[in-house]
Structures are given as structure tokens and as C-alpha cells.
């Protein structure tokens, strides 16, 4: 593998990624999804605040919004706690101190609205990744475009160069999304300080970038193995969506089926937003471990298959 080649291929791939139809679809899809989630989360707060603000004797608009947000946060905290809990809770009122502490961290100690957006983004993002990465190699293998490069660079450089180019594109899109959401939230919800918003948005963007890694590597492996764009997209989507589905359904019959979630980051990805740094470190390690595994499988396939 040659560092110069990897760099050249990465910058070329990143530069031209959005020019193709698939790149453009990915950009629009990720921005639409991100901003839609932000809009869905913020709209009720804005509406209720506006409603109260129009009444006589209402306080300052900023105070009204703050009160509304605090009330929404108080009411949704048990739901968030229930969602984050790993224990078998029967109802929202069953106690899980660990999950309650985690929910309090996300909703009280950090900008609650941003936390909620990130948690929802985390569930949809793997599917967005699938749309962005399914054609990492497959299309060019089937059209044999790679053949013009194969005598100029080693296959490893092509494999990692394209992967790096895609990562650059992903990070740029995520940063764009994060900046847009933070700016909008900073303007609309002035009770959050800019520093807390920017700090938490930067952390969340990094967390989503880290959770993207194993999914990108998985898509890369499948893309290199299948060699057909449609086949790659189908298989990626089935695996990414199928793992949590099968695990959830299977868990109803066998408790152990729930462990299937750990075949992908589904089982631990929310812990990237945990209050305990050890949990965060374990989640990061899990993501990196799966990334390394999928990269190794993809690299092995790409460097040995007929192209």
C-alpha cells in the first residue's frame, strides 16, 4: 500500500463523490433526514411557546420557551429512561436508577433538544450510511472502471483510498448538518448558551461519525464482494435493518437472540452518549473492533477477487 496513492485516490473520490447521482442522493437524503428530525423535535416546543406567548399576562418569549421546554423535558424523561434502560422494565414507572441517571445527563445536563435529535439520528443514520456507501466499489467493478487504475496502483491503495474519500465526504456532510442544526437551535432556543450547544453538537457529530465507521466498513465489504450496485444496496439494507429486526423478534422467543444486536453497533451505539466515560470508551472500542473486522474482510475480498 502506498500512502501517496491512498491520498490521491481519497481526494479524487471525495472531490467527485457528489457529482454522481448517488452522491447527490446521499447528500440530499442525509441533510433532509437530519433537518427533518430537528424540525420534528423543535416544532412542538415552538408552537406551544407561541401559543402561551400570545396569551395575556405571558412573560417574556424567552422565558415562556424555557418553561415549555422544561415541562416537555420533565414529561419525556421517563420515556427516554425507559428507552435507554437495558433492564426488563414492564412500565414507564418501574425504576432503573442507571437509566434515570443517563436520561438526566442527556436532558438536564446537556441541551435536551440536541440530545433527543442525536438519539433519533443514531437510529436512522445506519440506513443513510447504507445509501452513501453501497456503491463504494460495486458500480466501478461492474463497469470495469477500476481497470484503468489497476496497473497504476496496488489494490490496497484503491480500497483504502476510496474508503477514506467516502469518510471525508461523510464527515463534511455531518459537519454541515451539525452546524445547520446548532445555528438554528441557537437562534430559536436562546436559553441554551452557544458554548453548550456548540460543545454538545461537536461531541454528537463525532459520535455519529464514529458509529458510521463500522457501517461504512460493512458496506465496503459487501460492495467489494457483490460487484453489483443494486445487489450491494439490497444486501446492505437487509443486513442493517434485519439485524435489529431479527434480534427484537427473536428475543421474544429466546432471550439470547438479543445478543445478535452486537453483530453491528446497534447493541451499544447509544452508549456513545452515556454519562459514564467508561461506557463511552467501550462503545468506541466496539465500533472500532467491528470496523477493523469488516475492513479486513473487505480488503481480503477486494485484493483477491477478479476485477
Amino acid at each position, binding site marked *: 500500500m502506498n500512502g501517496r*496513492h491512498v491520498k*490521491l*485516490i481519497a481526494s*479524487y473520490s471525495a472531490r*467527485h463523490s457528489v*457529482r*454522481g447521482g448517488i452522491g447527490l442522493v446521499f447528500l440530499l437524503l442525509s441533510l433532509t433526514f437530519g433537518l427533518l428530525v430537528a424540525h420534528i423535535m423543535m416544532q412542538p416546543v415552538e408552537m406551544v411557546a407561541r401559543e402561551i406567548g400570545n396569551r395575556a399576562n405571558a412573560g417574556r418569549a424567552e422565558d415562556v420557551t424555557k418553561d415549555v421546554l422544561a415541562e416537555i423535558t420533565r414529561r419525556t424523561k421517563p420515556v427516554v429512561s425507559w428507552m435507554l434502560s437495558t433492564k426488563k422494565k414492564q412500565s414507564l414507572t418501574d425504576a432503573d436508577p442507571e437509566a434515570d441517571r443517563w436520561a438526566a445527563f442527556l436532558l438536564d445536563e446537556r441541551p435536551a433538544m440536541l440530545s433527543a435529535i442525536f438519539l433519533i439520528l443514531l437510529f436512522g443514520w445506519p440506513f443513510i450510511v447504507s445509501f452513501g456507501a453501497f456503491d463504494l466499489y460495486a458500480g466501478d467493478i461492474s*463497469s*470495469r*472502471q477500476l*481497470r*484503468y*487504475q*489497476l*496497473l*497504476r*496502483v*496496488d*489494490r490496497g491503495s484503491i480500497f483504502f483510498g476510496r474508503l477514506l474519500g467516502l469518510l471525508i465526504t461523510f464527515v463534511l456532510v455531518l459537519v454541515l448538518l451539525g452546524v445547520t442544526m446548532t445555528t438554528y437551535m441557537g437562534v430559536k432556543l436562546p436559553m441554551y448558551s452557544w458554548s453548550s450547544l456548540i460543545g454538545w453538537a461537536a461531541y454528537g457529530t463525532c459520535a455519529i461519525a464514529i458509529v458510521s465507521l463500522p457501517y461504512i466498513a460493512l458496506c465496503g465489504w459487501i460492495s467489494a464482494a457483490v460487484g453489483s450496485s443494486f445487489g450491494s444496496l439490497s444486501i446492505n439494507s437487509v443486513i442493517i435493518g434485519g439485524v435489529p429486526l431479527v434480534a427484537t423478534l427473536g428475543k421474544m422467543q429466546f432471550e439470547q437472540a438479543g445478543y445478535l444486536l452486537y453483530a453491528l453497533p446497534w447493541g451499544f451505539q447509544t452508549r456513545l452518549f452515556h454519562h459514564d466515560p467508561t461506557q463511552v470508551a467501550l462503545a468506541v472500542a466496539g465500533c472500532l473492533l467491528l470496523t477493523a473486522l469488516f475492513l479486513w474482510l473487505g480488503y481480503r475480498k477486494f485484493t*483477491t477477487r*477478479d*476485477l
Partner: protein
Amino acid sequence: MAEPALRILNLSKAFGKTKALDDVSFEVPMGSIFGLLGPNGAGKTTLFSIAAGFLNADAGQLRVLGTDIAHVAELQGRMTILPQDASFQKNVPIMEQLMFFRRLDGSDGPTAEREVLLALEKVGIAEYRKRGIHALSHGMLKRLGIAQAFLGNPEVILLDEPTSGLDPQNARQIRDLVRELQRQHQVTTVISSHNLAEIQELCDHVAILDHGKLRVAGSVHEITRQSRLLEIETSRPLDDGERSVLLAVSGVRTLEERGPRRYRLQLSVPAELSADDVVMAVVRSLLDRGIAPRALSEGNSLEEYFLSVTGEAAAAAPA
């Protein structure tokens, strides 16, 4: 003995039950223009693909410039290829694509730009350099592929059907480019083609593949020695006696009437004679009988040989 540019040893490759290459062995001499012939499905493109590292062989060995093709990365910049069925990127200007390839070869930006422009000018599509491939016709795309194969200073160039789809003028231009490269830089060029006349004109060595098997490999001179053709137009038709006399000339194998005064002679040049000796003996024999040769030309003897080893049915298959 000098290391050949390509050494192919017992190479085999199968796609499912179809044997694309079956125990093929031959060598491509350094600095030669080598023709790879064969009907459709003979295994030419598979051989090129293995030589370029696109496909892995099932068995056998292929060495290029002394390097085993398993380590194809070591040949970077020393070998280029015009693949038969590869496509360029649709959404990137052709200049940018070729510059990217050249930069991968090791050139810096300005040098790459200069070299790419020169290559595009050589194949006559420089004016399209800022356009995407959608602006190019089939022939232009072929020339673009050739331009990328000529980039840099390769020691070996593999051209898979470089002139198919080109008009005669452009085909001639490509042949001239190949000759120029060989003359000036001793570049070894391996060309596959269905155009046997082109191969005979351009190549000094050939190999003929048929159904994945090697039928023959060697110099064009040696291969066509046993099946040279001579086309003759005479001042008057030949009678039976005169035909018998011509057939009695040492080296003349058959005589076939092609028109009222046109004849094709198949020559089998004996080891002690040259082809020219036989041609002079034929002409002398005609002149001795008061017959003036009006036109004399060498036929496409490679084609004759090709048909004899691959069978006419295969050769008649559409290109």
C-alpha cells in the same frame, strides 16, 4: 538468452465449466510488436486480463518484464493496457481523469497536464479535453483509451482490439503510433485484433489462440513461410499447360483462378530458398512464355494460415 517481455507458462483459466485458457505457453520477445489472434471466445481478452492482474489464473505462471504477475504492483508505470470493455467515469472531464491516472503514475500536476494534453493531441481528441465522455463517439472513446495507454513511459503496452470501431484513417494513425513507440523507445506492444491484415502489417510475432488453446506462436515470417500467397494478374488467361508449368516451379503449392486473368498462388517456400526466389521464378516462367505480369501483390497469408489452424467457421464468426 535475453529475458522475454512476457513469459506465459502453462496458463489456465476457467469460468465455470468453460475453459477460457487451457495450458497456454508462449513468450513475447522484448521490443517486439506482438499480435494475439483468435476467433471470438478464443481467450485473448482473458489472457490480457490475467497479464494486467485483473483476473487471477487458475494455474500456470505469467511473468512480465521478469516479474511474476502475482506481484503486479511492482510493474506500476512499466506496463499499461487498453482494456477491451472498461469504461471511463461519466461525470468527470476526460482531462481530469487522465491527469489523475498520470498522477498515480508519479507525475506532478503540471507535468501530468502537459503529458495528457500531448497524448490527447496524438490521438486527435484534445479539443474534447474539458468534456465528459458523453460528448465522445465510440471511436473517440477508443482513442481516449489508447491515449491513457500511451501515457508515461511504459515498457510494455497491451492493446486489446485497439482499432475496432475506428475509421480507416484513425486506425492507420494508431498503427503509426505503435510503430513510432517501438522504433523510438523499443516498447513491447501486444495487440489483439480480428483484423489479420493489420496484424500482418504491424506485428513481427504472433500467437494464435483457439478455444483457449494455443495453436501456434512465433515470428510472422516463420509462420507465413509455409502459406505465403501471391496474387498475379496476367496479360492473357493461362491455359492448362501454362498452369502446370507454374505449379512445377519449386515452392508453388497451389494455383487458384480468381478471375479471367487473375490467379492466386499459394507458396510453400523451401528452406534453401527465399520467398523472393520463388516469386522471381514464377515471373521468369511467365515471361518465358510471353505472358506479361500486369499486377503482382502479396496476399494475406496470415489470414490463410489463421483459417487453416482455427477452421473457417470460427474465422467467419462476426468480429
